[in-house]
């Protein structure tokens, strides 16, 4: 793998070395954050005891670490990587720098699925939502692509974005209508829709993990084709990229990632939008580096935001989505101002 091939080989190697080193640093940061997320919270546990809690257990504090903080931390890693990778994929596929899981209607579809599960199937447990969220996300995605590519002109980034906005508006209307009919659904939906990792237990993690792992692997499989597609459809086809297959697999991957992440944690904004842009300022537009970096940077932001939410409002908590928005928005504004927004 290489981002730049300059005639003197030293330059190639130094660029590559910098990027590999960056990945190692990001991985180290993530490990430290995960340890902190296990140790810190309403009740601090010494780092030394964290390991003991995971392996031996016994005390009340050990139970908190293992049964509450561990699933929550792992879910933060899964959801963070899912949203960041999905954002990078969507930005590449739609050639729209503002694309994110919210834009193409995927989150709205997942939300509608959850609301229907609550209202018509009486499902209150988080672990029951996942299939509804995935089905809702898929239907919304298919609808957006069908609407966006209807007619002779075919799909274009602008048409997809417009279709996404239209479908999102329609689905949001439907969600409001259903939610307002019943106060139990209203309360359940409100608790879910703030977007948080709080209260997620091991079964939820185990349930969403396969979808997210498959989505990530699929995304990593597409990196070179996405590089070709970034040059425009004609150039990509001229280079021998299978444009239709890349689009299809990319859409399947984003649907799995967004559907699973949204089902587990509720709609979380900004991670899918901001992380790929932050990463791009370091890696450049080569997806062979961009996606692995997103895979680490997404969880870093997610776990850090969750931890901050726990520490700032002790002994209470701020919802994770609130923290990601508060952190994400200024970073995003800074990125836009610093440089013409790094595109695709």
């Amino acid at each position, binding site marked *: 793998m290489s981002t730049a091939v300059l005639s003197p080989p030293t330059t190639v190697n130094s660029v590559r070395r910098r990027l590999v080193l960056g990945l190692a640093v990001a991985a180290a940061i993530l490990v430290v954050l995960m340890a902190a997320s296990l140790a810190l919270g309403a009740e601090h546990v010494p780092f030394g005891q964290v390991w003991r809690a995971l392996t031996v257990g016994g005390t009340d504090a050990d139970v908190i670490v293992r049964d509450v903080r561990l699933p929550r931390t792992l879910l933060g890693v899964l959801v963070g990587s899912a949203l960041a990778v999905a954002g990078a994929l969507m930005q590449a596929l739609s050639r729209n720098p503002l694309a994110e899981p919210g834009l193409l209607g995927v989150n709205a579809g997942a939300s509608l699925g959850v609301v229907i599960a609550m209202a018509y199937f009486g499902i209150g447990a988080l672990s029951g939502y996942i299939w509804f969220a995935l089905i809702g996300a898929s239907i919304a995605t298919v609808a957006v692509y069908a609407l966006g590519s209807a007619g002779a002109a075919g799909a274009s980034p602008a048409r997809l974005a417009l279709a996404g906005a239209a479908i999102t508006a329609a689905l949001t209307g439907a969600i409001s209508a259903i939610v307002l009919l019943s106060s139990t659904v209203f309360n359940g939906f409100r608790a879910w829709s703030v977007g948080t990792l709080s209260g997620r237990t091991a079964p939820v993690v185990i349930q969403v993990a396969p979808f997210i792992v498959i989505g990530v692997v699929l995304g990593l*499989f597409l990196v070179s084709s996405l590089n070709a597609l970034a040059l425009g459809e004609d150039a990509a086809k001229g280079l021998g990229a299978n444009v239709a297959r890349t689009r299809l697999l990319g859409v399947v991957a984003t649907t799995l990632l967004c559907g699973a992440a949204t089902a587990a944690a509720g709609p979380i904004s900004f991670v899918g939008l901001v992380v790929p842009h932050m990463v791009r300022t370091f890696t450049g537009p080569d997806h062979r580096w961009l996606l692995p970096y997103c895979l680490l940077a997404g969880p870093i932001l997610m776990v850090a935001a969750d931890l901050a939410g726990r520490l700032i409002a002790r002994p209470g908590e701020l919802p994770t989505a609130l923290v990601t928005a508060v952190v994400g928005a200024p970073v995003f504004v800074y990125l836009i101002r610093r440089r013409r927004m*790094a*595109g695709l």
Partner: protein
Amino acid sequence: MTTDLQTQPPPGNRLRAHDLKLQYGERVVAENLSIDIPDHSLTMIVGPNACGKSTLLRSLARLLAPNHGSVVLDGQDISRYPSKEVARRLGLLPQTSIAPDGITVADLVARGRFPHQKFLRQWSTDDDVAVTAALERTNTADLASRFVDELSGGQRQRVWLAMALAQETPLLLLDEPTTYLDIAHQVEVLDLCAELQESGERTVVVVLHELNLAARYATHLIAMRAGQVVAQGAPKEIVTPELIESVYHLRCSIIDDPETGTPLVVPAARRSAPRVRES
């Protein structure tokens, strides 16, 4: 500089198109269009705006499926190849291309290696060699670490050409590779095309608006109008005032290029009637 040996294309050329019907939606751009690209030629396609040159090139590169007829690459219908296999034999420089923001020249040129890369082997020394050679041939080696979006139009054009060269295909289709280039760089790019062709490495097809340069460099010239081939052959044999008048509706006289003896089109002056009507 030019050789006009290949007036009659021999049978069984690598790239041929038979009885094409090309259309976008309901708009038919070309019908009953057959074309044969002589192997090892530098074929230039000329014709007025919107006559279908880019459309023809897109169908030859399999970007546009013909509604009728077929494009034959190495004796087999081009639609039957795996897509990367086509891209290893035939490269296309589209008329307009988009570079991702923040991409460096070296990185962009390296993307031309896509059809040669395997999933688990993203980069090889062959790739290094091809990219370096392409940068040098297009005089862009000193731009390698610059950002593409910060280059001049002409520099950018040469970088895209470098990407097409890095693809290392025996057949190379270039759609107006000299737009944005000053006269010196135009000549440089066309010299490069001639070099590629003369070295026997490649068959090069170029869409060009600059008639006099086309007539000078082409070993095989194709004149198109409204989706049809009006004339083809060695420039010396086919470029006549009648042809120019019928293709472009432009009256002109033809003189010998003082450098090469190839035909030079001199448009009729607007005020005084042209004195010479025959070449």
